[in-house]
């Protein structure tokens, strides 16, 4: 491979960048900026404009903002949100780290099965863990006897969010733990360092940035989700739910917009710390790295297997319960099984049309989104120059993580409905739903891409440059194949996220473009919990099926292009 011939480079190359690359780099970045501007920035500005304009008693404006921020109610909500989000992050990140470590750095059997099971929560709307928890620990729950109080409230939200966010954290940590330089571990063991010492001085420094990223992601996902609180929150209220209620119940767009702005703060904070960490962090993986292979160790593997089994059993219990409840005729008085809940034609939400729409939307989002996001991340990470443009792009890519889907959706309504906006033709169309969904899930996908790309030494680009290979060809021939696992993760992530998203879409669908996850929320809100469970189950199986198909189809490609990771065959 070209990378093995990397030469030390001196001098400036920027003067002789070929035209094709200039178009690729600058054109790509400008296109991305335009896209992010329309899909993220403008809708957000519309929210700010809405939040600070005192028009029409909709709870906006400076006076309302001051009133909101100084009210006891607001402090209570902020406290609750922080409590829940910190608890969830504190529970999920260590568990996800152990899980990821078990999959990447030990020799436990059945890794593919555990990995597949761990992704289950990604495959269903966030309402589903909530619904399952009600059937498990609600007043009529099968395990109600095991707990002192019913599930509604703090613990319901924490458990539900923990399940919902687990795979999100896991994705980042798996990616960070996937690459390790065996030479460092060899050196450590030959110097007599204990495995713990090796972990502390090699593995931890290489992954702590990902731990931080995972912590931030879980925190912001939790603080901005209303799917779980709406189902199992009871009277324990959180900010995201408050924004939902302000907008949906009271038509207080201004108030919703104001709370949305408060929810932006965690993202700004994590951006700051991430930028700071970047400066501390060198390249973890050089072009000369040897792939790390764990040695066998019965005791270690046994412990990790137990942890992995416990987590998977809990997930299976929750998701099994949801599927089971979708088949029960009339909970809890008639437990005979039937497919009644799957006859959607008579219930809220658009039924099978909603389901077909969701599949179409998810396909478009996955294919277009992954291409745009990965290329964008590559351009941001691996090209010098346009420093300010890079910074702007990076900031914009971080913003969607903190924007509750609901607020983003409302921003779309305000922005695309502005009188005189020529983009109005997209309003209510599938195109807008796809754009909004890509924008909504941009950050995680972008972070996955970035994490994978950062682990590649910039020597690769330098080598390509010195060989006078155009950057776009290098990107296509070298970077993409190396990062294929991460790229496929992004495709899968976008597909299932699009299948499961509800919060942004709820304000953007038209009768022709109603989505399955919106139908779930509508049915649950109307108290048709069986129907909601049934539609969630359909979403779950579709997402899981497509993921399996993707994994299967890509295995051949993967095996070929990833052969270098398995140790260097003679070339």
């Amino acid at each position, binding site marked *: 491979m070209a990378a093995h011939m990397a030469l030390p480079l001196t001098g400036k190359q920027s003067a002789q960048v070929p035209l094709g690359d200039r178009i690729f780099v600058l054109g790509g970045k400008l296109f991305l900026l335009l896209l992010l501007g329309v899909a993220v920035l403008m809708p957000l500005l519309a929210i700010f404009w809405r939040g600070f304009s005192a028009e*029409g*008693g909709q709870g906006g404006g400076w006076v309302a903002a001051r009133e909101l921020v100084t009210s*006891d*109610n607001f402090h*209570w*909500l902020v406290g609750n949100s922080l409590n829940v989000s910190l608890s969830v992050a504190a529970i999920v990140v260590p568990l996800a780290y152990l899980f990821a470590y078990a999959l990447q750095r030990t020799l436990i059997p059945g890794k593919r099965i555990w990995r597949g099971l761990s992704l289950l929560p990604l495959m269903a709307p966030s309402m589903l863990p909530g619904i399952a928890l*009600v059937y498990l620990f*609600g*007043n*009529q729950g099968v395990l109600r006897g095991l707990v002192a*109080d*019913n599930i*509604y*409230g703090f613990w319901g939200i924490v458990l539900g969010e923990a399940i919902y966010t687990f795979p999100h954290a896991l994705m980042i940590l798996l990616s960070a733990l996937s690459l390790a330089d065996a030479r460092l571990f060899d050196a450590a063991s030959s110097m007599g360092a204990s495995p713990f010492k090796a972990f502390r001085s090699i593995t931890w420094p290489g992954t702590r940035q990902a731990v931080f990223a995972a912590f931030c992601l879980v925190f912001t996902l939790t603080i901005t989700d209303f799917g779980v609180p*709406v189902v199992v929150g*009871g*009277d*324990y*209220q959180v900010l995201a739910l408050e924004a939902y*209620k*302000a*907008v*949906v*119940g*009271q*038509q207080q*767009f201004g108030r919703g917009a104001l709370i949305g702005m408060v929810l932006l703060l965690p993202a700004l904070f994590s951006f700051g710390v991430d930028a700071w960490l970047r400066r501390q962090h060198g390249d973890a993986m050089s072009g000369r790295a040897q792939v790390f292979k764990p040695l066998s160790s019965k005791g270690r593997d046994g412990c990790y297997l137990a942890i992995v089994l416990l987590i998977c059993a809990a997930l299976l219990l929750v998701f099994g319960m949801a599927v089971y409840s979708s088949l029960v005729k*009339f*909970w*809890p*008085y008639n437990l005979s099984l039937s497919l009644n809940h799957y006859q959607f*034609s*008579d*219930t*809220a*939400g658009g039924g099978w049309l909603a389901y077909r729409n969701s599949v*179409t939307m998810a*396909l*478009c989002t996955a*294919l277009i989104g992954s291409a745009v996001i990965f290329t964008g991340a590559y351009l941001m990470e691996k090209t010098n120059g346009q420093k300010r443009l890079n910074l702007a792009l990076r900031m914009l890519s971080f913003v969607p993580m903190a924007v509750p889907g609901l607020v983003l959706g*409302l921003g779309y*309504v*305000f922005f695309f*409905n*502005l*009188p005189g906006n020529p983009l*109005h033709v997209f*309003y*209510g169309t599938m195109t807008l739903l796809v754009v909004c969904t890509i924008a909504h899930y941009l950050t995680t996908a972008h972070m996955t891409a970035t994490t994978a790309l950062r682990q590649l030494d910039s020597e690769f680009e330098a080598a390509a440059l010195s060989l006078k290979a155009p950057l776009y060809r290098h990107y296509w021939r070298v970077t993409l194949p190396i990062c294929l696992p991460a790229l496929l993760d992004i495709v899968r992530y976008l597909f299932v996220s699009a299948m499961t998203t509800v919060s942004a879409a*709820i*304000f953007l669908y*038209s*009768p*022709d473009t109603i989505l399955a996850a919106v139908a779930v929320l*509508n049915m649950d*809100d*109307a*108290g*048709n*919990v069986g129907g909601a469970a049934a539609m969630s189950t359909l979403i779950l199986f579709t997402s899981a099926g497509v993921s399996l198909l993707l994994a299967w189809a890509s295995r051949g490609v993967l095996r070929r292009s990833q052969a270098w990771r398995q140790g260097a065959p003679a070339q």
Partner: protein
Amino acid sequence: MFKPLALVAAVLTAFSVNAFAAKTELTVYTALEAEQLKSYKQAFEKANPDVEIKWVRDSTGIITAKLLAEKARPQADAVWGLAASSLAILDQQGMLQSYAPQDLAKIGPNYRDAANPPAWVGMDVWAATICFNTLEAEKQGLTKPVSWQDLTKPEYKGKIVMPNPASSGTGFLDVSAWLQTFGEKQGWAYMDALHQNIGQYVHSGSKPCKLAAAGEFPIGIPFEYPAVQLKRQGAPLDIILPKEGLGWEIEATAVIKGTPHEAAAKKLADFSASPAAMELYKENFAVLAQPGIAKPQTELPADYEQRLIKNDFAWASKNRDAILTEWRKRYDGKSEKVAQ
């Protein structure tokens, strides 16, 4: 790969569907119960073969919020089946096209907008009730409540679900009715006491009864339609009409101002107020906007209509913000955990 092909196929199908659509497509926003939509749409399209209804259905709060959010460029052509108090808010914003449907004379004077021509015209009435799970009552030893006041008894602590008035039309109807029936001061005192027994505030008007039917919480405060439906399906429920009287609300129809399909939207308004439509509504509701058509529902007491309180909609609409603010201050966000 088959996926791009499927995509192309999907796009082509979408285009070809549009190519065949010669009828007027009317986008109708509604908060009607989902199971009612099919028969209403069929009946209307049978009477008006040149018009096709496209439903956008959601709960009262969401539909109202959606209409307001789209104020600058309305997407809806008409509204068929939304709370009159919500339509009054849209009317205040100047979003409704006043129109007198052909059968306006037959509509009861209380069941339409007072202006002439009216901004909205009623269809039927829905009212607050109590759903009481008899199986769970027996298991947990609960006595059957007969009045709103009964619900404040300590034995029901944590056993009652009601809709949050901030998100649900039915919830607001409950609160505004208690304030009107008991007077403002006693009304709030009543809700203070009731709050001690509430297990959960939910976000829709039908969910409390479904939760009661499933025994999750033995007592729910929904509106009467889901109660009747669930009882017909065999849920172990008693439907209780509290003796102090029922809060109620009108379900109504309106034409959106500036719609490009005004003629078709007016046809919808005509149909919604017609005797034929009343025949549809009477399957679901016991009180209709046209007097003399309704038939009593066996699940409800015969004097149902007499139990409706004197409801001052203008007062409720005008004070909506103030009431909700006060309600939220009292019950929504107390720092101590509410009894479960």
